[in-house]
């Protein structure tokens, strides 16, 4: 009696084990996991793409994980690549352009080269350059972080200005406008986070400079745009036009709740702003102000990221095929994500699509996408280098002194020596 049961029991056990093994194998085949950080923006854009691809390829599932913040994703990626453990890594990950080189150079072989499978000339060259190391490109470029000055047109009107008053102005002029807006409407102009140097980098790039020279050496002390940017930053605080915030939630809360009047930021904020449908028609977009100096234009970049495929992925072919089919060739898809998420894609042919020419009701019926396309072509191109995070930290250390009217030259010296020290 016992022997029969144990034999049957063993057979059952083997059957169950093989079924579970097969199902595990089946589950991992054709299941692509993607890491993104902004549910409204890149999360939804990726979900759109996934829907298009899985409609044609029903055996593939694409899981979009947008629960982690960008800092968390950076830390997770770095930790796992450091440890050499590839278990928890996704198949596709979104990495911002200005830190991409850090990963490519620190972890050779961690990412799948894509330039031999996908034609990189289809994309904007400055985006491809950010992901290229030793002649090989590792990414499918996603969005451009072309910047605009998003403003509340109702507050502007109440203060007695029109949209034309914000065209092609300098930051100093914006300080004046902001002071009037505050007097007439009581609303502060901007919200700034002392731990985020995004606006400073935006100002610096509008004059064609970055923290580093061509050869990778530090460009801080003689960096006139950086000095002007810091001075402008100080002016905003001294004129008491700033709401101090800390962290992403407070930052977005300040303008989505209508507390501050304007936000100079990359076009990807559209998704966050449009998430408040009741504010339709109350927003407008102006060109980003320029620094009051020779060489600065009313166009700049903040952020912008690209899709990378991990070399450790089990589903490399499917991932590359997915990226190539949808992100590398579907012009209609790019029209959709433009209007819904504000994703200004880097696929050159997508710019010819219909959506890029239309006006947007949300922004008062203005042809915002055409404007962004125009500004995109004017962005001065810079080489981000690999030590941006270190210099950012050095600047953050000096910001409180600067905004209280401290000596900018002394601050630049301190930033230079700290960055120099960290770059060893």
């Amino acid at each position, binding site marked *: 009696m016992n022997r029969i049961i144990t034999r049957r029991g063993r057979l059952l056990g083997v059957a169950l084990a093989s079924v579970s093994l097969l199902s595990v194998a089946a589950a991992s085949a054709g299941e692509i996991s993607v890491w993104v950080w902004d549910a409204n923006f890149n999360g939804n854009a990726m979900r759109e793409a996934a829907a298009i691809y899985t409609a044609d390829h029903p055996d593939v599932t694409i899981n979009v994980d947008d629960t982690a913040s960008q800092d968390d994703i950076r830390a997770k990626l770095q930790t796992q690549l*450091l440890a050499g453990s590839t278990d928890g890594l996704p198949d596709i990950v979104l990495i911002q352009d200005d830190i991409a080189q850090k990963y490519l*150079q620190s*972890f050779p072989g961690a990412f799948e080269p894509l330039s031999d499978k996908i034609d990189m000339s289809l994309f904007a060259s400055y985006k491809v350059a950010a992901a290229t190391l030793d002649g090989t490109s590792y990414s499918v470029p996603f969005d451009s972080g072309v910047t605009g000055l998003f403003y509340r047109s109702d507050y502007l009107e109440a203060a007695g200005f029109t949209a034309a008053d914000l065209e092609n102005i300098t930051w100093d002029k914006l300080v004046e406008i902001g002071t009037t807006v505050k007097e007439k409407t009581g609303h502060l102009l901007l919200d700034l986070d*002392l731990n985020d140097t995004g606006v400073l980098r935006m100002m610096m790039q509008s004059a064609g400079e970055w923290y580093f020279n061509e050869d990778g050496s530090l460009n801080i002390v003689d960096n006139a745009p950086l000095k002007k940017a810091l001075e402008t930053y100080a002016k905003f605080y001294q004129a008491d036009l700033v709401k101090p915030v*800390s962290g992403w939630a*407070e930052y977005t809360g300040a303008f989505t709740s209508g507390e501050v009047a304007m936000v100079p930021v990359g076009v990807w904020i559209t998704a966050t702003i449009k998430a408040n449908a009741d504010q339709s028609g109350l927003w407008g977009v102006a060109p980003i102000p320029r620094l009051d100096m020779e060489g600065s234009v009313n166009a700049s970049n903040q952020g912008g990221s690209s899709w990378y495929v991990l070399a450790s992925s089990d589903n490399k072919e499917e991932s590359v095929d997915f990226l190539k089919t949808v992100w590398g060739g579907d012009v209609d898809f790019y029209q959709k994500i433009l209007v819904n998420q504000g994703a200004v894609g880097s696929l050159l042919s997508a710019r010819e699509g219909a959506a890029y020419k239309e006006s947007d009701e949300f922004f008062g019926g203005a042809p915002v996408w055409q404007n962004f396309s125009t500004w995109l072509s004017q962005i001065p191109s810079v080489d981000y280098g690999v030590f941006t995070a270190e210099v950012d930290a050095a600047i953050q250390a000096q910001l*409180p002194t600067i905004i209280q009217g401290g000596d900018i030259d002394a601050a630049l010296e301190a930033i230079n020596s700290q960055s120099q020290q960290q770059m*060893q």
Partner: protein
Amino acid sequence: MAQTRLDRRERINGWLFIAPALVLLGLFMVYPIVWSLWMSFQVGKGMNLSFGGFANIMRLTQDTVFQRALTNTFTFFIVQVPIMIVLALLFAVALNDATLKFRGLFRTAIFLPCVTSLIAYSTVFKSMFASDGVINQALMALHIISGPIAWFGDPFWAKIAIIIAITWRWTGYNMIFYLAALQNIDRSIYEAARIDGVPAWARFRYLTIPMLKPVILFTTVISTIGTLQLFDEVYNFTAGTGGPADSTLTLSLYIYNLTFKFMPSFGYSATVSWVIVLVVAILSFLQFLVARDRRRKP
């Protein structure tokens, strides 16, 4: 031959019993520690490491950020640990009073912060200390301040906010140790002192504290180690940046940045970790020295 075969067998058995634990300890604790010491002599970014001798130690001496982190960590240690120990002691003595009603409730209330989720409490504290948060509103309503304090926008106030948060969280933990130790003190000593006319504060100073000395030493050493390794609160409150102008940057957060935020420098972060080890060792030794029993020469 004092050793019998039974003795030897028992000894071998004992070693065999603890062998698995020793192996695991060696593999997961001792080996990584020795490896990190080896790492601290390596220089290079990312995975491109090479032997650098004392280069990392030289770098330590010139690193302004490291000096800032060290100063901050020491500031937290010097201000927060004494306040917390004293508070915990006072709470323990107050709650040890047999005639106090709702003692259990008070003890639970003071101990509860230790068991709350770290992220949950960080989020709540962060919103409480925001410019328009509850703390500012309360202080303004009580007319203690006229305008909102930018808690995490000002280097000084950011430190105060962190100290308040840590004290709130860990006072209960230390209080429990003192309560347990107080239970072991014989009541008759206090009765004798009361009969002799010793006032309450003197009873506390000359009776309670000396008798609690081993426990006070223990909690001080544990709190020192915990505060010198401070990371969680600082990371969560300032989103990993170390507060306005590096004012809340601690050594552990600096190590984290060196490894995960900046272009990774493992050798150098290992060196900074060993600095923490040395500082903790020195401070613990000093504390044991201060608390040792001094024999008076007759």
